[in-house]
């Protein structure tokens, strides 16, 4: 029935269409078929959740499955007044602040060293990068073992060096003042290799003639570093810092596994609080509002990164 009523309309539309570009258009629709499967996935698993999350943030949607109702801006005003949310955001910022400088400086120093020690290149690259491909839970298992207050590797060597009193071992992951630093140290060990490889690649593209001219001028190694090498690494550093910012805002795994957000919520980060609100408090609506605050923050950093990339494209 419906087919019959539609046929005349379709036919008349077809006759109205200008005949000229048919061949081109026919070819062009083929392109859509190539793009369609990915676009469908993209729409379902990325675009749709983005809007769904925004919608949920205005409802009292619950994980328990009871019907949700519209609550207006209630979740949002609660989120902005939520001290625990602010402190989670602050912990995230704190982690970023502590972890970024060593992740940049160490990566540069090691890349400079490895760039000079070419004959050991393969081994050195492997040693510094290997932790990066290790799953996060393996990393945390090993470091929890190293951080053991009594009989852990770290305290053992600190006591051996006389830095620590054997009678008062440091409780790394359970201490309010040390927990964050412990996670930072583990993270630096785990992810430094990626930045290291970025820097090493950048160093290896520098034309050696650049140095030759200045060494004939009698410039010292140190002067060359400051006036030639580091300025040439500026773009890489910008990239590393932006990638680091994005990664830090998303931090969750290490805290969840090593400290559980403790002690006393000293290492509870943004995603962790969203996780708690959504999956332990069953409040999907409220967790969605919290997610959106983080979403916007990461989006801002990502836009900076995107511009950094596209400027180079020109």
């Amino acid at each position, binding site marked *: 029935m419906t087919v019959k009523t539609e046929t005349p309309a379709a036919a008349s539309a077809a006759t109205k269409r200008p005949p000229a570009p048919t061949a081109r258009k026919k070819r062009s629709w083929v392109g859509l078929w190539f793009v369609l*499967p990915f676009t469908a996935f993209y729409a379902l698993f990325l675009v749709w959740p983005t809007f769904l999350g925004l919608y949920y943030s205005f409802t009292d949607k619950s994980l328990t499955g009871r019907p949700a109702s519209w609550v207006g801006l209630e979740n949002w005003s609660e989120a902005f007044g939520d001290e625990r949310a602010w402190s989670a955001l602050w912990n995230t910022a704190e982690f970023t602040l502590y972890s970024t400088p060593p992740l940049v400086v160490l990566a540069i120093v090691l890349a400079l060293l490895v760039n000079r020690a070419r*004959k050991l290149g393969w081994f050195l690259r492997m*040693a510094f990068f290997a932790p990066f491909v290790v799953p*996060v839970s393996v990393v945390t298992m090993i470091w929890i*073992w190293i951080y053991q207050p009594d009989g852990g590797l770290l305290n053992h060597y600190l006591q051996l060096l006389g830095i620590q009193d054997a009678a008062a071992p440091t409780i790394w992951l359970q201490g309010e003042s040390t927990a964050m630093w412990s996670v930072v140290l583990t993270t630096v060990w785990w992810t430094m290799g990626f930045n290291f490889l970025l820097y090493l690649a950048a160093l290896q593209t520098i034309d050696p003639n650049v140095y030759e001219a200045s060494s*004939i001028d009698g410039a010292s190694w140190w002067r060359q570093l400051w006036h030639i090498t580091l300025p040439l690494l500026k773009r890489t550093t910008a990239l590393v810092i932006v990638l680091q910012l994005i990664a830090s805002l998303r931090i969750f795994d290490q805290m969840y*596994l090593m400290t559980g957000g403790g002690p006393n919520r000293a290492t509870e980060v943004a995603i962790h609080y969203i996780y708690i609100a*959504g999956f332990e408090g069953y409040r999907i609506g409220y967790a969605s509002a919290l*997610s959106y605050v983080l*979403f916007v923050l990461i989006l801002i950093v990502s836009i900076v990164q995107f511009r950094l990339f596209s400027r180079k494209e020109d």
Partner: protein
Amino acid sequence: MTAVQEKSAAAPSARPEVRRRRKRPTVGAVIVYIAAGALAVMWLLPLLWAVSTSLKSETEASLGQDIHWIPETWSLEGYRTLFERGDHLTWMINSTIVSTIVTVLTLVLCVLAAYGFSRFDFPGKNIVFGAIIAGLMVPGQALIIPLFDLVNSLKLAGTYWGLALPQVVAPVMVFILKRFFDAIPRDYEEAAKLDGAGHLRVLWNVILPLSGPIMAAVGIFTFIGSWNNFLWPLLVATDPSMMTLPVGLGVVSGGYGLFYAQNMAAAVLGALPLLIVFLIFQKQIVKGIAGVGLK
């Protein structure tokens, strides 16, 4: 100019000396090698400590024992108990299944899309491509709540598909592949088309053989990323039999408590698959990361 003049003036006497110095390692070079080597060994210590602990007996590994690197009695007790429990193998199989689905689907979908965007004009192309580029900036981790709700309502929670499908959406891979395809000259395709090859055949016979390295890079990075993903499988796979390796190790093995030999045996076996992948594909991985910075 002055440099050149100085050089030519000083040349006769200075040259031989410079040459000799280049052949023999200088003090500076020796220091560089020692420092780099020492730091690299230090960097490997945590992994070596895990290996060392895993090869001790449970009593020798336990807290309160002396710290020593070489086991007094070599023991595979940790590995044995791990295999008797059996769940480690289950998680390894789950991770392999999920990461393989993700990698294969990502390659197929992204190659098709990149080829479509690179070689065809169709209505709405710019809008669709723009929307996908915008996706480069959307942080997936901030969407876990609605994404979980979606996967739950699709009845996919706790299944391989629920674990894998949301990880397949990778706009960055489409972007990278499109840029690569754009750089391939069209002449090859025209020749194939004259021979009567369809679009898919052209893609398969002409484009893909030219794209080996980039496909390898995309595939390896997708596989590693998916294998090491923690947050998403943590949410979706709550039943231990469906957990991936990182989640199983983190959630269940964390509870092995004081059995450190067993604990570290699990860590060593958990690290091994991707370390092997890394050693095999080291060249492609290093090149791939270099590409991020140099592009």
